[in-house]
């Protein structure tokens, strides 16, 4: 076994105590969320802080947040694949896993928010495409399906290796054998795989963009003040990629430490991806500025109460924290090369994830508290909403941890390929230099 195989397969073979500690904590938190949900199910949505007219709150915030996170993965790794960025090779698997699990947990939020979840099937039976809800349902389903494929396909060669080299017996061996689909790794198979991945990588970019655009249109298509805005689509997509990369950083740093992947997840990756994060931060600031400047300048009677509630009113803590965490701090940290280290990016990412959750919150809730008719309302989430949110976060982490207990954390074959390409490039460069030297030698010899 090569060194990379040894390192990557090690956590699959042996399970330390710390894994079980982490597993138990996450499972307990998830269980707490499930308990809160059962309570909500039996008593009704009245156990939340929702009311009329604040009909949507934390659950919709979580929905937008998690679906946003899902843009980390596939979109990033697809773009990097399409642009043939060589340094992507060791991070694609992690990114794609983040995507799949974020989508699962995100989609779940809608079910949690429903008054009659047992009727969810009505969406398929009686679904009508005039409703943005159906756009979301369709786009997210397609995205989930293609993300799973996109996670699975590049894993085939690695699964085959596990099938051949995994020494433990039992169901694990069986799992790898089944999932490897008889992969032999011959030229023909590789050729087809590369082709399939290339097509998927291109197709998945517009799908991902469509997903967060229609997520924003759930709000944008209504006439509610500050929701009914054309900027929402691109604003959401930018925010999604932004929070997605931040989450990817956290996942990467964690895996690097726990699974000893320092050799493959190097400072280089953190630096490059950090630059991307910096760009997204600036873009996000630009969109936020555009949104609020136009609102304030136009000063529509319906919109001003909402804008004021966000900036000066009861939501100002969320708003200003968001500005600080998304716009200012990441910029200050990431602008310098010395900030784009593992440590620096992780700190920035924690800020960004919190900031982006707050951003989603300040989009969802304030508009509803300032209706045109009827009294202004306040929204105070309850322990049930908080528990389900914590449970959802734990569930996301749990899925991620369990997945990487079973499957390799790096796309081994891709990394190896990358090394080979790198070596060939170096060789070519050497030959070129030698040729040059020879040529100049000839020239001076004359």
């Amino acid at each position, binding site marked *: 076994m090569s060194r990379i195989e040894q390192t990557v397969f090690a956590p699959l073979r042996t399970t330390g105590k710390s894994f079980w500690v982490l597993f138990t904590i996450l499972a307990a938190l998830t269980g707490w969320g499930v308990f809160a949900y059962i309570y909500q199910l039996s008593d*009704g949505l009245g156990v939340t802080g929702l009311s009329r007219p604040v009909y949507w709150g934390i659950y919709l915030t979580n929905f937008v947040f998690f679906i946003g996170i899902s843009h980390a993965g596939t979109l990033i790794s697809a773009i990097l694949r399409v642009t043939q960025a060589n340094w992507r090779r060791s991070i694609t698997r992690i990114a794609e896993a983040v995507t799949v699990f974020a989508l699962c947990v995100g989609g779940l939020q809608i079910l949690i928010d*429903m008054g009659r979840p047992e009727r969810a099937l009505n969406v398929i039976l009686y679904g009508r495409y005039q409703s943005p809800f159906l756009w979301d349902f369709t786009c997210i389903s397609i995205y989930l399906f293609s993300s799973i494929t996109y996670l699975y396909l590049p894993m085939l060669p690695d699964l085959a290796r596990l099938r051949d080299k995994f020494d433990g017996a039992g169901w694990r061996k069986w799992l790898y054998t089944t999932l490897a689909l008889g992969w032999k790794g011959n030229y023909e198979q590789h050729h087809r795989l590369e082709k399939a991945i290339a097509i998927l990588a291109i197709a998945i970019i517009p799908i991902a963009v469509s997903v967060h655009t229609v997520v924003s249109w759930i709000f944008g298509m209504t006439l509610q003040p500050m929701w009914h805005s054309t900027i929402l689509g691109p604003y959401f997509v930018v925010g999604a990629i932004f929070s997605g990369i931040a989450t990817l950083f956290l996942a990467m740093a964690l895996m690097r430490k726990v699974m000893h992947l320092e050799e493959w997840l190097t400072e280089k990756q953190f630096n490059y991806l950090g630059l991307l994060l910096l760009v997204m931060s600036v873009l996000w600031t630009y969109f936020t500025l555009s949104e609020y400047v136009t609102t304030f300048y136009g000063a529509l009677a319906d919109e001003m109460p909402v804008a004021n509630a966000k900036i000066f009113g009861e939501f100002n803590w969320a708003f200003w924290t968001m500005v600080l965490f998304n716009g200012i701090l990441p910029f200050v940290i990431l602008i310098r090369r010395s900030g784009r280290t593992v440590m620096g990016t992780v700190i920035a990412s924690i800020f960004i994830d919190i900031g982006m959750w707050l951003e989603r919150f300040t989009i969802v809730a304030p508009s509803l508290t300032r209706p*045109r008719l009827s009294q202004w309302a306040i929204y105070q989430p309850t322990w049930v909403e908080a528990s389900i949110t914590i449970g959802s976060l734990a569930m996301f982490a749990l899925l991620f941890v369990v997945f990487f207990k079973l499957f390799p954390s790096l796309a081994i074959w891709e990394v190896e390929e990358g090394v080979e390409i790198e070596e060939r490039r170096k060789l070519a460069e050497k030959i070129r230099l030698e040729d040059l030297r020879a040529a100049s030698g000839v020239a001076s010899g004359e």
Partner: protein
Amino acid sequence: MPRWTMAIDLDKCLGCQACTVACRMENNTPIAGPEQAAKGRAMLWNEVIPSSDGEYPNVTARYIPRPCMHCDDALCVKVCPVKATYRNEEGTVLVDYDRCIGCRFCTVACPYAARYFNWHEPYYPETLKAHLNPDVAIRPKGVVEKCTFCVHRLRKAREQAAAEGRVFQASDYVPACVETCTGRARYFGDLDDPASLVSQLLKSPRAFHLLEELGTHPKVFYLREG
């Protein structure tokens, strides 16, 4: 085909809220109780909203009774993913309680905040239970409900006319709030009939719609204080 419409004369409205009470009794609207009501969960299909213009001492106060507007271009109908909210052939916007998935997309989309959600199992005090209207279904937990223009009364009026062997007339049908209104401020009728009272009233210079600028084309209209 009639197009049912309601007119409310703000000059005549006393703000007594008899319409709200009549609506509640007619439609079996559940009681939220003081604690839930404080959280903003009171169910008032027909809410009487106090509104005021200007600053002290030059203030004009008024009451605006707000049923569902039964918009011709209703946002609630547009956004409902499962066609649980629909506009029937006569232009009345209704909810199919058996199909609603409780996503509350309609409630956030309605600019009039005319829709209500069943946060809990519906509750009626003992004294009210004996007076539940058998013509109106009780809505279960987790679905959305709102003013129906007392559509069950329309059904009944049609059946009655048929039983008596006469042609159904628009005047056979009025919602409970219109029937009860203390100030006789409410009018109800068929907008497609140019001779009907509501059609005539709509021509009045006092006539206006709530949030007209949103383009929802409400079918409830108001007569401004003269």
